């Protein structure tokens, strides 16, 4: 069965299945979503209007037995940043779409009136139904309702009330193998799905398998790849402590943004650390390790229970814990977990929303450290769409504007995540130049600046940072196209058998003859395609800048400022 493009037009409620054009045949994941958006979406369109398109694409290896290959890319023009956007998530959807022969699901147009719809993806196409019952409901209720209606095995992609209200912080949820939620978190893609009138997408289970051009070669390469991942030391730490293992090391390095980016260390770091989370999960009968999709050998997710031992949240990430924790000075992991659950259910990005709350704290709307009030705001303001809830729901930049705050940590209107760019200069280059707005995953220099993966580049020196960020952004764009989890990058950086095994799997799957350099040039091509879209949307080099306060205010404990010149930043694009 050849892979096809499933195209759904919400203006006339029609569905088309198209053969994949040859120029997109070698693309998957981010490479494909960005190529489709760049070629079919007018960069100057309104992100919530009928001309935008929402594109889901499994990676090149998704649906095969390749370890950690179940990431789903979602792309569109972002209503938060106005740039092109790709956000990827785990869950079961990528593998299921790939097995249905769906290379990409493109949702275009916009329905007339206020009606809501569901989509059901089957091997023969997509069935569009009107939806009333679940309108206004949270993502957990949607996943449960689809389970009752269609059965346990259906994949689910959904939006919560925030997506329905087209808030710029709205995310898109993807059901994981245990019925929990993963998220296409960043860039407000939930609002784009809401603008298309789609409440949820159900994906039919299938017994189909992916056709492999050279099964023996594939199986050899896939074994080598899985072994390289399993034996890398980072894998052990992630399985025991989750991504929250980073709280203590980033804090120690003086780069953990606290109190709305005024401090580089958080007094309460120990109470929100991965070590503390690990002990608490064990005490309460949760799960220390958990995979967001089948075939994950890293298992960085977890199941975090409340004091009574009842499920509270999973996929409880460092970024989410930092944002509601250190950035808002909340040092109670249970409150942060409750906020995480609420944000997943309402369908909002934990980074953007919590950083917006931190900005509101700076404005004096609530006190730093007042986690209970933050919970109330989520429940009673954001979830209900009150005027204040919609300000927070507009993201950190909107919140800063509404309250006249000058210390607003955003690039291209997207909140800066959990590493202060003054104390980790490489990541500052990534924030400034990423085609996505401030995004740590776009070129994770923390690996080399802080964690000594792939060598070491001094985080406080400007030396080598532009090149580091460039190399990582190019590599990441390629990895994001394979369906691989970005955490495979640690092994790829350190273990010389890992990248050849990955390239070998792609060759064996498609019968191609790519070399490692071809994968690198694919990454460079994707970045250029995205950058070109942004330029056509009206962005210039002047948008590749960090907010002024980073250059004006010293960050303790190292007392460092952001000190790159404009030319130095702009040299990023010299490739």
């Amino acid at each position, binding site marked *: 069965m050849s892979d096809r493009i499933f195209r759904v037009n919400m203006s006339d409620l029609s569905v088309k299945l198209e053969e994949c054009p040859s120029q997109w045949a070698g693309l998957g994941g981010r490479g494909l979503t960005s190529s489709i958006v760049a070629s079919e979406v007018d960069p100057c369109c309104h992100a919530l209007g009928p001309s935008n398109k929402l594109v889901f694409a499994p990676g090149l290896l998704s649906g095969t037995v390749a370890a950690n290959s179940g990431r789903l890319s979602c792309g569109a023009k972002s209503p938060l940043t106005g740039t092109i956007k790709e956000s990827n998530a785990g869950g079961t959807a990528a593998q299921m779409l790939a097995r249905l022969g769906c290379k990409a699901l493109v949702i275009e147009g916009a329905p007339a009136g206020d009606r809501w719809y569901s989509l059901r993806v089957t091997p023969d196409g997509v069935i569009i139904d009107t939806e009333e019952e679940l309108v206004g409901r949270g993502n957990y209720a949607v996943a449960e309702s689809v389970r009752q209606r269609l059965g346990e095995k259906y994949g689910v992609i959904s939006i919560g009330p925030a997506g329905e209200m087209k808030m710029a912080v709205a995310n898109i949820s993807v059901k994981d193998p245990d019925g929990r939620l993963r998220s296409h978190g960043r860039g407000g893609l939930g609002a784009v799905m809401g603008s298309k009138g789609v409440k949820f997408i159900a994906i039919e289970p299938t017994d189909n398998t992916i056709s492999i051009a050279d099964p023996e070669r594939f199986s050899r390469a896939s074994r080598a790849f899985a072994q390289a991942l399993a034996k890398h*030391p*980072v894998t052990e*730490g*992630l399985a025991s402590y989750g991504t929250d*293992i*980073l709280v203590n090391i980033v804090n*120690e390095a003086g780069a953990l943004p606290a109190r709305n980016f005024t401090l580089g260390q958080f007094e309460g770091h120990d109470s929100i650390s991965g*070590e503390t989370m690990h002990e608490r999960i064990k005490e309460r009968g949760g799960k220390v390790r958990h995979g967001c999709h089948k075939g994950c050998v890293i298992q960085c997710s977890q199941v975090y229970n409340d004091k009574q031992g009842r499920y509270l949240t999973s996929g409880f990430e460092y970024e989410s814990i930092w944002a509601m924790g250190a950035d808002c000075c909340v040092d109670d992991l249970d409150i942060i977990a409750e906020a995480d659950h609420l944000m997943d259910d309402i369908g909002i990005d934990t980074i953007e929303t919590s950083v917006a709350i931190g900005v509101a704290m700076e404005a004096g709307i609530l006190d730093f450290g007042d986690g209970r009030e933050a919970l109330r705001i989520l429940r009673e303001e954001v979830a209900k769409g009150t005027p204040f809830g919609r300000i927070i729901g507009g993201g950190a930049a909107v919140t800063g504007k509404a309250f006249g705050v000058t210390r607003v940590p955003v690039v291209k209107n997207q909140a800066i995540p959990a590493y202060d760019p003054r104390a980790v200069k490489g990541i500052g280059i990534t924030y400034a130049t990423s085609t996505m707005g401030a995004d740590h995953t776009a070129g994770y220099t923390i690996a080399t600046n802080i964690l000594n*993966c792939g060598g070491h580049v001094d985080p406080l020196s400007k030396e080598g940072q532009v090149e580091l960020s460039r190399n990582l952004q190019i590599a990441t764009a390629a990895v994001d196209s394979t369906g691989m989890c970005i955490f495979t990058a640690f092994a790829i950086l350190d273990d010389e058998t890992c990248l050849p095994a990955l390239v070998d799997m792609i060759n064996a799957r498609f019968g191609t003859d790519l070399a490692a350099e071809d994968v690198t040039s694919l990454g460079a091509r994707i970045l250029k395609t995205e950058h070109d879209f942004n330029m056509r949307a009206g962005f210039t080099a002047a948008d590749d800048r960090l907010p002024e306060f980073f250059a004006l205010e010293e960050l303790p404990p*190292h007392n460092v400022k952001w000190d790159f010149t404009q030319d130095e930043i702009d040299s990023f694009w010299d490739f």
Partner: protein
Amino acid sequence: MRRITVKLFAHLRQGRFVSRDMDIAPETTVARIVEQLGINQDEVGVTMINSRHCSPDAVPGEGDTLAIFPLVGGG
């Protein structure tokens, strides 16, 4: 002797400690301290003295804080 504070993280804490003051002879390297703590060099990913990354040959001074991490990742 020099008095320093040593902090351990993640699984390196198991059977050891979270934070402790230690008296070390002058010229004692980070590698030697790691060895004294019964930690295998291969298990060590990152060491920092006073929040700056340091090499195994670095020598902590009086009052310094040495942080020892296994190889960790995430993001």
